[in-house]
């Protein structure tokens, strides 16, 4: 075995901020060999990004402890002056950041940006650098690289930009690549492409990769070694296979148990109670102890050391004191709602031919030159007490569809029958009155609550709007009840949103929606901005509210795992149209439409550790100019001549599945 390319020893980092010293990273050690992929997993605030940035010393407010050592080959990085560091950054160690949109300079062409790196670090001249840039772009799978090299970042899609970032990082053939959440901002099919690319480039260049992520499924696809971080410490380190076969630390176990899946849909998800400890006052004991179901006296008393075991290093007292008997983690028992019986045959919501066409205006007089068909002819039904999930990648029109249902988009056309009323034509006062039946929970818990209002007013906003609960005492009583329902403490009524964590804010949003006793709540990616353990809490909350209050949900998501756990019906959207619609189990087990198949295959999942994700080639076309015929035909592996001519009609298949694909035309 060759020498490790990167050695991190006893790394401890303090960050000085106005609010005091943040003990971000504490005693982290690891080594990376050439060709090895080392994944650091953790929730937000666990110190994983600080660890990554420390390797390049990119933070100007960071203080390193005296024992900290970061060695690149034989060079000790922490003592190096800034001038020498600059020669190492980008040359020996390259970085890819999460947000491809902001990592590229918008006023320079991608070619100029890649050439800059090449000329700086590789000493190439202008011509050579340009030629090399083209070759690099081609090597990261950008079609027509010679033309693309002269394009500006805004002309490229998110996936393309991330590819450019990768080509830039790899331009200097670095020994180590630090990738900080490289695929978090990308869609699943693009994520699969990028992960495959990183993996194949690693094989050819034999570099070490430090991959930072919060997504255990991604880890299971790509990692050689896994390190789980919690509150600034590595709590467990093992090779991938050992880790996923038998995680040792209680935190790792719970983290894996948090993930929703189809099989577990009748049981509540495992949750991790509490929240991360304050990084300004580190606990002088096991940092996970307050949230750990196994914790006993020893855990609250002294700090566990990272135990070097043969295969797994773990920081937990459970493995030092062998005699201690390990209690079982008991899943909370909740009345299962295994089989839902439809009470009425009349659907709560029936949507026919819903369309959202945004006009594209051109010229001085703003004549309409064309339309962006964000939602094109969408129809579905929803019965009360059920959940319909709308799945698709970004840009497929799922959010536009949801907002159209809520009358938030004036360009909406089509027929909506909701709660026995024609919801599509109401307006003015009547519409305002009807709105209480249909509520919404948004994705971003930070922008969905007015920062200048306290919880009491936030939740009570709907009552003011609808003229309900004018009586103060009754209002207060209902408020208490709502807070209890969504699991918030009763004494938080006078706090502002910024005093809550993301998960708690999402609970406030849910309480605000529930305050009007709606029949339908539209959840627009309610968990995608949250950590997995918090996601589990919110998903559980939504499920228990549904069974208790007979709510219906329209659940918009790109996360297949969450959808398979929470939904009863699934509609898969592609470029404004529903391509497949049916009961969740049918769709998850036997997807019919090639796009659904590709989507499910691309989504990394823990069940398919051995299989690399199936990447779908190409990207979603622009909805301004959708491909003629079936919109999916340019990316479809089964495309036939007929697919390029006419959009397929709906075919009803067994098991209530409806699909729009010529492959199933004959079975009608």
């Amino acid at each position, binding site marked *: 075995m060759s020498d490790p390319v990167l050695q991190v020893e006893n790394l401890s980092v303090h960050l000085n901020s106005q609010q005091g010293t943040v003990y971000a990273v504490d005693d982290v050690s690891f080594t990376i060999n050439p060709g090895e992929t080392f994944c650091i997993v953790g929730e937000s605030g666990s110190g994983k990004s600080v660890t990554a940035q420390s390797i390049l010393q990119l933070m100007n407010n960071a203080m390193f402890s005296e024992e900290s050592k970061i060695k690149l080959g034989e060079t000790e990085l922490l003592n190096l002056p800034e001038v020498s560091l600059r020669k190492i950054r980008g040359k020996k160690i390259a970085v890819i950041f999460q947000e491809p949109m902001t990592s590229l300079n918008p006023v320079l062409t991608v070619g100029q940006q890649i050439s800059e790196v090449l000329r700086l670090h590789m000493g190439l001249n202008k011509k050579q650098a340009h030629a090399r840039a083209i070759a690099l772009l081609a090597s990261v799978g950008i079609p027509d690289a010679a033309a693309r090299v002269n394009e500006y970042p805004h002309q490229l899609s998110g996936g393309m930009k991330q590819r450019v970032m990768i080509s830039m990082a790899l331009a200097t053939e670095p020994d180590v690549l630090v990738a900080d959440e490289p695929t978090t901002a990308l869609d699943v099919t693009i994520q699969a492409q990028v992960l495959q690319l990183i993996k194949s480039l690693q094989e050819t260049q034999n570099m070490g990769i430090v991959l930072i992520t919060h997504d255990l499924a991604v880890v299971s696809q790509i990692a050689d070694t896994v390190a789980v971080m919690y509150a600034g410490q590595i709590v467990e380190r093992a090779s991938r296979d050992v880790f996923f076969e038998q995680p040792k630390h209680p935190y790792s176990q719970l983290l894996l148990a948090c993930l929703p899946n189809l099989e577990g849909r009748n049981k509540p998800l495992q949750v991790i109670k509490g929240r991360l400890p304050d990084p300004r006052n580190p606990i002088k004991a096991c940092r996970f102890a307050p949230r750990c179901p196994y914790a006993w006296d020893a855990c609250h008393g002294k700090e566990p050391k990272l135990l070097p075991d043969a295969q797994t290093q773990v920081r937990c007292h459970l493995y030092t004191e062998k005699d201690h008997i390990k209690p079982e983690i008991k899943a909370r028992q909740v009345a299962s709602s295994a089989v839902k019986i439809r009470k009425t045959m009349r659907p709560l919501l029936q949507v026919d031919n819903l369309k959202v066409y945004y006009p594209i205006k051109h010229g001085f007089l703003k004549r309409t030159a064309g339309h962006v068909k964000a939602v094109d002819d969408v129809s579905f039904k929803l019965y009360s007490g059920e959940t319909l999930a709308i799945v698709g990648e970004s840009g497929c029109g799922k959010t536009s569809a949801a907002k159209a249902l*809520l009358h938030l988009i004036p360009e909406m056309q089509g027929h909506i029958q909701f709660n026995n009323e024609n919801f599509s034509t109401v307006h003015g006062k009547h*519409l305002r009155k009807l709105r209480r039946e249909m509520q*919404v929970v948004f994705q971003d818990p930070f922008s969905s609550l007015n920062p200048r209002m306290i919880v009491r007013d936030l939740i009570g*906003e709907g009552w003011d*709007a609808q003229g309900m609960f004018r009586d103060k005492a009754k209002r207060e009583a209902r408020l208490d009840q709502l807070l209890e329902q969504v699991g918030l403490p009763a004494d938080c009524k006078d706090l502002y949103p910024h005093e809550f964590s993301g998960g708690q804010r999402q609970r406030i949003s849910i309480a605000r929606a529930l305050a009007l006793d709606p029949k339908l709540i539209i959840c627009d990616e309610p968990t995608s901005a949250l950590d997995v353990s918090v996601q589990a809490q919110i998903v559980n909350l939504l499920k228990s509210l549904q069974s208790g209050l007979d709510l219906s949900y329209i659940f918009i998501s790109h996360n297949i795992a969450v959808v398979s756990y929470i939904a009863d019906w699934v509609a898969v959207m592609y470029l404004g149209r529903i391509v497949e619609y049916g009961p969740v189990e049918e769709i998850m087990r036997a997807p019919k439409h090639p796009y659904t198949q590709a989507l499910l295959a691309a989504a990394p999942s823990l069940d398919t550790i051995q299989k690399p994700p199936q990447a779908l080639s190409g990207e979603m076309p622009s909805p301004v100019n959708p491909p003629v015929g079936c919109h999916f035909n340019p990316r479809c592996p089964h495309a036939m001549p007929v697919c390029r001519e006419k959009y397929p009609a709906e075919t009803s298949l067994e098991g209530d599945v409806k699909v729009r694909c010529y492959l199933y035309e004959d079975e009608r």
Partner: protein
Amino acid sequence: MPFKLVFLWTDILFWLLMLMLVTVTVMPKPRHIKQAWTYVWQSKLAMATVVIVMFYLLMTMLDSIHFQRQVEGTYRSDVESVLDVFLAPLDQNVETSYSAPFASRSFVAEAVELPNDGVVYETTPLNYVQQFPEDEPDAKIWDILYKTVVGLMLGLSLSLVLCIAMAYFLRIPILKPSRPNTTQWRTMFITFVVIFTLFAVMYYLSRFYHILGTDKVGQDVFYQTLKSIRTGVLIGTLTTMVLLPFAMVLGTFAGYFRGWIDDVIQYIYTTLSSIPNVLLIVASVLVLEVVISKHPDIFNNIALRADMRLLALCIILGVTSWTSLCRLLRAETLKLREQDYVQASIALGTSNVKLIGRHIVPNLMHIVFITVALDFSSLVLAEAVLAYIGVGVDPTTFSWGNMINVARLELAREPVVWWSLTAAFVFMFTLVLAANLFADVVQKAFDPRARQLA
């Protein structure tokens, strides 16, 4: 009664504004606003500058109570303010022409007829200033020094007594330095003592000398500068009051409703801002002058006429300068209305007006506050520029602009007459600098992003 109160329009508006300021200060505020203000008071800079701004406001208040004296049964036609009484007899033209600061003889040589029919050009002794014998050149310096010390003692002792009394009644510890992250009372008191003492010395000296000299018609410059404060402050405050409703209503409506409402409002403000401001102001001032001269029965008094012109200037400045704030507010509203909480509020069935009041306006207030604080100083400066080109306030109104405008003609003189210009500049500079520095702290406190960057 020996006098009769005169209520000028600008007086009424200014006092209303002060009343509003007091009400807003006393009113209970939401917690995030309170926190922001606490942050402001924890800054030494804010505490010091606020004292300076308060000094200017106090001068304006004193100068905004007007009355006419009764002499032999009839009211005199000229209107005086409390400040005039306080500064008397400086409000009278006591000299004939220019005199340098602390001079005892006039600056310009005048023709003096000798008893033997000859004419000699020589400087004349000033009426207001005590004359010292010519053989004792040091006598005047000693006199000035002596009076400075007296003023210093008076000012120091009086201000300290006031400070101690206030600190005692409000139980504020001023002896030990304020800890960081608490209200910086000590800084405030020190600034107060310094300003008060400085003013006391100047005031005491002004009883005996023209401390800043006199102007062309023999008017005391110190008096002029103090009288100019009211004009500057009024233009700064009243104009913002005129501009705010325009900017806020039109800005939020354009951003919130979009569509044709947005088109119309945008059309109005692009048109308005494409006409040179000065041109609009000149035109309006001319129209106003015609109106005033056609109705001598309404504007029967010089003070009334001058006041009308000041008010008109405020309104014109306000009407022409709301566009930039309106633009800012429209853009911010466009951004805010796409926020999820606004969308959620629409989904809850909130009416448009309620929604603007609850979600849009509170989230715009930091921009409004910052712009108002910054606009105040630029408006004070705008007055000076307008007076310079001759379309500012009435020439009989004391203003820094007028002072500079008159003084510029004398800059070519040798030796140069520098004191009018300098006095106006120093007083205006102090006000604008204090207001700007205060605005900076306010901006940092109210704009969450600015606070993060600090």
